[in-house]
């Protein structure tokens, strides 16, 4: 049974095809034209799998643009999808921290990957990938270097954790005061981790904690989150496609598999 999931978020669009125990996937920036990007990402994955659109028996869409995907059979929210995808990858998951390009979520997971509680921030850039991006621009450093540099910090700066714009000017002031690059970047990561941790307290943190979303690829983010929540965190091999994988699994479930 060949099924697919498509996750079109604010920053990136992902597609996953599941066929005969194999998984094919792709990630690309969402850009301005959602329909165009959805078609593109799906076409790329179909090519990787050596299949055509007609081979797909069921497609589930998720992400903030889930209701705009013309070829999807059903749309399911990204929270439900993340829980399914994380559970499939780590059956012991009890908490998911998902930090994407423009939002963050903490999800409490119960039996069989069912959601039993959730909280999300989709209003504010603080505590999201955008926060890290903005700071990388201010400090003129490539985004891929942010995580490793944060880990070198000896005394992370105290940075306002409630607003990206205020934090930006704080970083500029601290830099002028002569604080080291490592400490500035450490402070940025600490701030993001604190913001997300506080938000998730109403859900609670229980072992195993799985970190998903594009920001999970940032080793600095992982470390600082572990400090804040006091638990070890596991990161899937491809954290960015967990929601999409969940969508594909739910597509399979729709067909009674």
């Amino acid at each position: 049974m060949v099924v697919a999931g498509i996750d079109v978020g604010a920053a990136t669009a992902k597609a996953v095809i599941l066929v005969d125990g194999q998984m094919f996937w792709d990630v690309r920036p969402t850009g301005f034209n959602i329909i165009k990007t959805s078609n593109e990402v799906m076409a790329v994955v179909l090519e990787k799998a050596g299949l055509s659109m007609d081979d797909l028996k069921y497609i589930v869409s998720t992400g903030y643009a889930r209701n705009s995907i013309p070829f999807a059979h059903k749309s399911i929210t990204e929270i439900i999808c993340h829980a399914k995808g994380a559970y499939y990858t780590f059956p012991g998951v009890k908490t998911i921290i998902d930090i994407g390009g423009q939002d963050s979520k903490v999800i409490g997971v119960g039996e069989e990957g069912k959601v039993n509680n959730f909280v999300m921030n989709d209003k504010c850039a603080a505590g999201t990938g955008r926060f890290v991006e903005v700071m990388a621009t201010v400090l003129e450093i490539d985004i891929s270097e942010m995580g490793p540099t944060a880990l070198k910090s000896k005394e992370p700066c105290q940075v306002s954790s409630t607003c990206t714009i205020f934090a930006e000017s704080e970083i500029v002031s601290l830099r002028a005061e002569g604080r080291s690059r490592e400490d500035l970047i450490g402070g940025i990561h600490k701030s993001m981790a604190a913001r997300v941790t506080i938000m998730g307290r109403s859900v609670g943190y229980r072992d195993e904690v799985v970190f998903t979303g594009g920001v999970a690829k940032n080793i600095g983010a992982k470390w600082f989150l572990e400090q804040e929540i006091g638990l070890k965190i596991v990161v899937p091999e491809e954290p960015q496609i967990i929601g999409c994988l969940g969508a594909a699994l739910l597509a399979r479930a729709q067909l009674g598999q």
Partner: protein
Amino acid sequence: MKAMENVRAYMRQRPFELKKLKDGGRKIVGYVPDGYFPEDLAWASGAIPVGLIRGGDHEAVERSAETGVLRFLDSFCRAQIGYWKMEEPLYRLPDLMVVPILENNIKIISDCWEHAGPGGVFKFGVPHKQTQNGFKYYLYWIRELIQRLQELTGKEINEAALKEEIDLSNQIRDLFKEISQTRKSDPPAISGTDFITLNHASYLYDKRDFLKVLKEVSEEVKKQTTGLPQGPRIMLTGSTIALGDSKVIDMVETAGAHIVIEEFCEGIRHYREKVEPNGDLVEALTDRYFLKKLPCADCRGASLKRFDHLISLVNEYKVDGIIWYSMMYRDSYDIEGFYFAEQLEKGEKIPLLKLSSDYDAHAEIGPFRTRIETFVEMIKANK
């Protein structure tokens, strides 16, 4: 339902009808429908009470700023000021505004209407504790209000007229209760949309016409079902559910869930408590409106009583999940929301979803839809 179509048509023409009545010499009394204004007094004095319950428009929230009012104030309360500024007919018609003041947000409506708005405002404080002293204080102000209404209409409120109004209101309460009972079935016999619309209509309708409507609805509802499939049973609660603010209700029903019961300070009538018209009628009104009625979140020590009440509703209506829908910056409800979440976590473990609105439909629809759809899916999966 045919009766509901008639209600919607009536509500569309009611502002014009009120204008005609006013031109013909009737006095209109506008009021903040927080549940503490005994409308029977207005009816008995010959005036027409109109509950000002519009909401949902971000423009109204923004326009309130023209009066100098603070940005970080309850969205519904700011909208009341804004609607007057926008010359909404219902807000411009009243000859007198009555504002029973429970807390700072409502007080500011009365301040703005007094200084930057229509002018004539009768405001009085509602004591925060349901004690005998509070009763005396509230009764004192009700008597002052009677004077004011009599001055307005030039007609004295006589006992017979007041008794008649009280009886009709009690009949309306009984019918609301009857209709509410039909929502205990699975699926409920009347939708949340329709039941909430009836509540909103009750603030605008001619009372005798409304009684007829409720009887019609009650008859129709007993004969038919909504024809909808079973789905998660939701209690909707919070501070305010305004007329024109249907996005949450729509999204819940579109997601396949049913709103089976509500509890709000503004927007839903407290139909469970009746007036016992024995002895002094004014005292009987005060007893029901101040001592008997479920206190709202602003009242000291009300939280335990209110929490117990919500849990009893959960059991009565077999509720699967609670959606806490509050206006932004309504502090007393924010605090209560935290308390309730804690209590639910410790005890009954009923799923709770908290939503907070600034009437910014454009920005809120996406985020709300994600949360509501997830909540409904969550309940379905765990049932």
